[in-house]
């Protein structure tokens, strides 16, 4: 990342981990993204390096001058270190594919030094714009709790401001034109990150996943496409972008589908709290025990244990830790964050030790 620029405060809490807002007991965060491309320019994977330099220059200028926030951080990813890029992935500010310049499922990308970047609105990192990912522009707004409507209002405003100085590729029939036809039309993806430990314990999680798939929703893990549901976190998102308005997608998700899943999870939690309290208490306290005493912890194990902790906090089993602290720890235990917080590069074995130390310090009474 270029010096002389504002930088991310890596110990700060990002908006999506604040643990507040509507239905925050189940919905961690809401995220909306728009895919946009420049007219008269090949999509990033197909253009020459010169094309990508040109689109980067144009988009950067538009994004920086759009007044998206009082402080805007711009990062040239081709000049950032692998650790810095990983950090942005962990904070959900860029995709894994963007960090490596390899489009998801598509042709191999041009490589890590290819011209591409990201703009991040500080201090809360709620708005970010990736440039030269699979599409020239990927605009994202993330908020805590169930807040797709607020995300939509904010993102459409950002979109309008960018469009004032950029000529978007658009066709009346197909809408906003995107590199992958699965995004064409609105270019809109609305997703919510759900914490569903109750449904896992009652064994109903598969039913929910099947129902979501039947409703043409994608079910993904904590780190999006291709990631597992670490610690009972699931991302639900729309897949249809053509033939539906943004408002329809929003209403379906925010007013119909998500509230039902939330209610389903709450019922499951109430059920286990009355009928299987001893079993849940046991699981929560065992997790607390490991987090307070273990000397070696992997990322996956940490996520699973923190997920149990989070359930314990929500059910009132654990009272000395705040939900926001648990949320924040989920970020701090990730490999790049751990190294950044401790201020040194570490291999996997060293990280397991450091992670255990950090968790003990933050969790123990």
């Amino acid at each position, binding site marked *: 990342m270029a010096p002389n620029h504002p930088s991310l405060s890596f110990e700060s809490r990002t908006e999506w981990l604040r643990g507040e807002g509507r239905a925050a007991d189940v919905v961690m965060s809401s995220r909306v993204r728009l895919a946009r491309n420049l007219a008269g320019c090949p999509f990033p994977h*197909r253009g020459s390096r010169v*094309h990508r330099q*040109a689109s980067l220059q144009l988009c950067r*200028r*538009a994004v920086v001058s759009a007044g998206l926030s009082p402080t805007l951080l711009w990062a040239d990813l081709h000049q950032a270190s692998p650790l810095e890029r990983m950090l942005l992935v962990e904070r959900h500010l860029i995709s894994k594919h963007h960090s490596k310049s390899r489009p998801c499922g598509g042709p191999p990308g041009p490589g890590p030094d290819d011209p591409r970047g990201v703009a991040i609105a500080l201090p809360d990192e709620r708005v970010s714009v990736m440039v030269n990912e699979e599409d020239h522009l990927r605009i994202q707004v993330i908020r805590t709790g169930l807040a797709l409507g607020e995300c939509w209002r904010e993102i*459409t405003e950002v979109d309008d401001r960018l469009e004032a100085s950029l000529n978007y590729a658009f066709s009346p029939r197909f809408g906003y034109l995107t590199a992958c036809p699965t995004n064409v039309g*609105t270019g809109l993806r609305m997703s919510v990150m759900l914490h569903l430990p109750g449904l896992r314990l009652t064994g109903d999680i598969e039913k929910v996943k099947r129902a979501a798939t039947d409703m043409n929703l994608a079910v993904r893990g904590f780190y999006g496409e291709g990631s597992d549901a670490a610690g009972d976190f699931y991302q639900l998102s729309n897949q249809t972008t*053509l033939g539906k308005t943004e408002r329809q997608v929003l209403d379906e998700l925010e007013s119909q589908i998500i509230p039902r899943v939330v209610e389903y999870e709450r019922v499951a939690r109430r059920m286990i709290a009355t009928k299987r309290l001893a079993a849940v208490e046991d699981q929560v306290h065992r997790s607390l025990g490991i987090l307070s005493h273990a000397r070696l912890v992997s990322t996956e194990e940490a996520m699973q244990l923190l997920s149990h902790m989070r359930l314990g906090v929500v059910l009132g089993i654990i009272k000395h830790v705040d939900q926001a602290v648990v949320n924040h720890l989920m970020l701090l235990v990730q490999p790049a964050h751990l190294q950044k917080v401790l201020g040194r590069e570490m291999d996997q074995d060293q990280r397991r030790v450091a992670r255990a130390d950090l968790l003990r310090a933050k969790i123990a009474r």
Partner: protein
Amino acid sequence: MKCDRCENEATVQEITIRDGARIETHLCEQCARQMGLASQSAVPLSELLTKYVLATGIGGAAASAAGRASPATECPTCRLMWSEFRRVDRLGCPDCYTAFESQLGPLLERAHEGGSRHIGKSPSRASARRAGTKEAAPPADDRVLRIATLRKQLERAVVEEQYERAAALRDQIRQLEDPADDRPGD
């Protein structure tokens, strides 16, 4: 099993049910063709699927349009081949949507719950165009993009040894890079 009409191996089985009775006929490919039973031998599965999808998919209109005009195999702007798109699932440029419109129709409908037309938001400039009003002010400048495209064309012209075209392209690029050159007495 032998063919009902000759000594060849039977490969085509025809089952007819007439007045509740099941009539089985076993024929070799040649005899079947003579009787008009096997119109074409060994249609590759992929072709069959394409034909099925095009003929019976929800995109009936798009499919019949595709039947009339033979579908494009290459995008004239970015030179992406349709076959390459099927391999990588990514289109090359915005013009690909026009070039491959007929083939994309059924694919899009399957991916988008039958949706075939955009009904959402549109850029304010596009709305202005549709409303027949004077087009909104053009964006700041697409000069850099235009230059990038011309450079690519220039590279291609040099490779293809079209030197006159290359020279013309080079002049266009220069002019775009430094418009002041063109101003007399400046």
